[in-house]
C-alpha cells in the first residue's frame, strides 16, 4: 500500500522533517534527524528506481485530482536516475557533514543548517519528480532559497557576497522561468507538462511560444550555470561550507540540466527545440566554449575549491554537449556523464573538505607536501582527479568514451577533439595539485596536521569506490541512461 505513495513521500519526507529539525535544540540531534531522513530518502529512491524499471513511467496524482486539474508527480527512467543521484549524494554527504559542520559553522546555526539542507534536498527532488510546470517553479525556489542560506553560512565574509550574487542571478533566472511558464499557459491553458506538450502542437508556430521557449531556456541555463551564465557558480562553490560545495556540485546544477532535458524533449519536443529553434547548435557552441574557457581558467586558480568550481562549469559543458546532439547516443552520453560527474565532483569536494578541516585552507600554497600528512585524503583527491581527466578504469573514462563516440557517430569530429583536449586541460589543473601535495616540501610555518577522521574519509572513499566500480562495469548506469534517453527521444520526436 505504501509503495503507491512513494513518489509523494520522496519529497514530503524531507520537506516535513525540516521543521522538526529546526526545533531540535542540540546540533547532534538535528544531524541525526537529517541523517536518518536522508537515508530513508535514499531507500525510497532505490525502491522507486526499481518500480520504474519494472512498470515503466509512474504517475501519481496529488490530491487525486485528474491530470490537467491537479498536480501530477511523474517519474520516468530519466527522473529515476536523477532521484538516485540526488538521494545518493544527500545520503553520502550527511555523515560527512557531522564533523565538517561542527568545525565550519557556529554551533547555534547547525540546526538551521540541517533544516536548510533538508529543504534543499526536498526542493531538488521535487523539481525532478514533478510533472507540473508551476510546481517546478515552486520547488525550484525552495531549493534556491535554501541554497542561498547554505552558501551564506560559509566561514568568510565573501560567502555573503557569493550568496547575494547567486540570489540575484538565481531570482532573475526563476523569474524568467515564471515568465516563460506564463506565456506557455497563455497559449495552452494548462500547466501540466505532458498536457502542454500535447496542446502545443497547434500553437507551436507562434512568436509567443518561441519567446516562451527562449525565456525558460535562459532561466534554466542560469540555474545550471551554462557558460556564459555561470558567473555565480565559482564564488558560490568556493566560499560555501565544504559539505555544501560537495552537495551542490553534484546535485544542484545537475537537476538544472535535467529540467533542460525535460523542456527540450518532453515539453517542446525535438521538432520545435532542435529543428525550429536551433537550440542544438547554440548549446553546442556554448558547451564547447565552456569546456575550453572554463578549463583554461581553472588552470590559473590558486584556490583549489575555485579550481574545481571552474572545472564544474567545464564539465557541465560536456553534459550539455551530449544533449545538444539530440540523438539517443548523445543524450545517453550526457546523462552518463551527469551521473559520473556527480560522483566524481562530490568526492573531490569532500576530500577538499577533509583538507579544510585539518588545514583551515584550500589554497594551493598551503597544501605543499600534504600527501605525507594526509595520505588517504590526497589519494582520494588523486583518484577523483584521474577520473575527472578521464583515465581508463574510472567512470570519467566511460562518460568520455560515450561522449566522443556520440560526437563521432553524428559526424562532429572537431567536438570529439575538443572533448579530449579539454580533458588534457583537466590533467594540467589536477596535476598542479598533485605536484604540490606530493612533490613539494612543506614550508617552515606549516602546521603538523593529522589525517582526517574516518567519518569524513569513508563517504569520500565510498564515492571513489563507486566511481571505480562504474569504470569497470558501467552496464547498469549506461543501461539506465540509454533507456532514459530512449524515452526522452521518443517523447521528443512525436
Amino acid at each position: 500500500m505504501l509503495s503507491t505513495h512513494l513518489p509523494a513521500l520522496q519529497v514530503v519526507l524531507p520537506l516535513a522533517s525540516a521543521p522538526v529539525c529546526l526545533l531540535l535544540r542540540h546540533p547532534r540531534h538535528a544531524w541525526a534527524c537529517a541523517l536518518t531522513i536522508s537515508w530513508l530518502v535514499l531507500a525510497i529512491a532505490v525502491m522507486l528506481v526499481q518500480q520504474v524499471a519494472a512498470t515503466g513511467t509512474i504517475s501519481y496524482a496529488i490530491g487525486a485530482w485528474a491530470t490537467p486539474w491537479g498536480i501530477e508527480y511523474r517519474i520516468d527512467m530519466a527522473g529515476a536516475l536523477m532521484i538516485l543521484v540526488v538521494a545518493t549524494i544527500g545520503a553520502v554527504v550527511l555523515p560527512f557533514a557531522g564533523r565538517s559542520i561542527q568545525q565550519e559553522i557556529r554551533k547555534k546555526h547547525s540546526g538551521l543548517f540541517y533544516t536548510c539542507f533538508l529543504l534543499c534536498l526536498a526542493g531538488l527532488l521535487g523539481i525532478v519528480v514533478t510533472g507540473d510546470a508551476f510546481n517546478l517553479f515552486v520547488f525550484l525556489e525552495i531549493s534556491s532559497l535554501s541554497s542561498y542560506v547554505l552558501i551564506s553560512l560559509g566561514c568568510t565574509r565573501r560567502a555573503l557576497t557569493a550568496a547575494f550574487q547567486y540570489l540575484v542571478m538565481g531570482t532573475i533566472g526563476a523569474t524568467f522561468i515564471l515568465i516563460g511558464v506564463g506565456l506557455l499557459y497563455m497559449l495552452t491553458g494548462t500547466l501540466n507538462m505532458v498536457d502542454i506538450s500535447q496542446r502545443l502542437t497547434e500553437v507551436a508556430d507562434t512568436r509567443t511560444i518561441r519567446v516562451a521557449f527562449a525565456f525558460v531556456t535562459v532561466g534554466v541555463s542560469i540555474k545550471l550555470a551554462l557558460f556564459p551564465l555561470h558567473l555565480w557558480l565559482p564564488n558560490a562553490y568556493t566560499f560555501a561550507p565544504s559539505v555544501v560545495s560537495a552537495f551542490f556540485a553534484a546535485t544542484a546544477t545537475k537537476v538544472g540540466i535535467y529540467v533542460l532535458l525535460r523542456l527540450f524533449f518532453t515539453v517542446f519536443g525535438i521538432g520545435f527545440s532542435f529543428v525550429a529553434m536551433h537550440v542544438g547548435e547554440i548549446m553546442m557552441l556554448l558547451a564547447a566554449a565552456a569546456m575550453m574557457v572554463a578549463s583554461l581558467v581553472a588552470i590559473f586558480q590558486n584556490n583549489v575549491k575555485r579550481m574545481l568550481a571552474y572545472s564544474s562549469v567545464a564539465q557541465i559543458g560536456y553534459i550539455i554537449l551530449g544533449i545538444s546532439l539530440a540523438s539517443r547516443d548523445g543524450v545517453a552520453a550526457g546523462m552518463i556523464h551527469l551521473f559520473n560527474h556527480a560522483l566524481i565532483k562530490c568526492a573531490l569536494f569532500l576530500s577538499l573538505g577533509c583538507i579544510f578541516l585539518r588545514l583551515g585552507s584550500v589554497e594551493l600554497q598551503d597544501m605543499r607536501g600534504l600527501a605525507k600528512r594526509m595520505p588517504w585524503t590526497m589519494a582520494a583527491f588523486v583518484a577523483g582527479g584521474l577520473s575527472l581527466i578521464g583515465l581508463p578504469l574510472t567512470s570519467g573514462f566511460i562518460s568520455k568514451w560515450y561522449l566522443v563516440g556520440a560526437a563521432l557517430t553524428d559526424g562532429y569530429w572537431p567536438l570529439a577533439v575538443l572533448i579530449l583536449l579539454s580533458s588534457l586541460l583537466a590533467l594540467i589543473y589536477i596535476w598542479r595539485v598533485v605536484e604540490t601535495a606530493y612533490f613539494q616540501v612543506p614550508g617552515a610555518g606549516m602546521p603538523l596536521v593529522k589525517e582526517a577522521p574516518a567519518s569524513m574519509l569513508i563517504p569520500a572513499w565510498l564515492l571513489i569506490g563507486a566511481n571505480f566500480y562504474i569504470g569497470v562495469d558501467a552496464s547498469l548506469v549506461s543501461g539506465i541512461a540509454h533507456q532514459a534517453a530512449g524515452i526522452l527521444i521518443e517523447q521528443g520526436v512525436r
Partner: protein
Amino acid sequence: MSELLGHYNYWIVIVLMMTGFYIVIARPNLIKKVIGLFIFQTSVFIFFISIAKVEGGTAPIIEEGISVYSNPLPHVLILTAIVVGLATTALGLALVVRIREAYGTINEDDIHVQDEER
C-alpha cells in the same frame, strides 16, 4: 491598430518589468538591486494577472446570477509567487545587512575592490 489596442496593456507591463530588470543589473547598490528584483517580480505578477482578465468578467467568487468570471488559475499562481517573492526579498535584505556589517559598504564596486585587495 487592433494589435495596438489588444496588446498595449502587455507592452506597458513589459516596460515595467524591464525597469525592474534594469535596476537589478545596472545598479551597484545592493538594496537597489533587491528593490529592482522586487519591482521585476511585481511586474511579472501584473503580467500574469493581465492574462487572467476576461472582458466583462468579475472576481472568481461564485455568485448567483453571474456567469462570466475572470480566470482564477493565474491568481492562484501569483498568490504563491508573491509569497515566494517576499521570501526572496527578505533573504536578500538580510544578506545586505550582513554584508554591510562585514564590509562597511553596500556598493558592489567597493565590495569588489575590497575582495581584490586581499
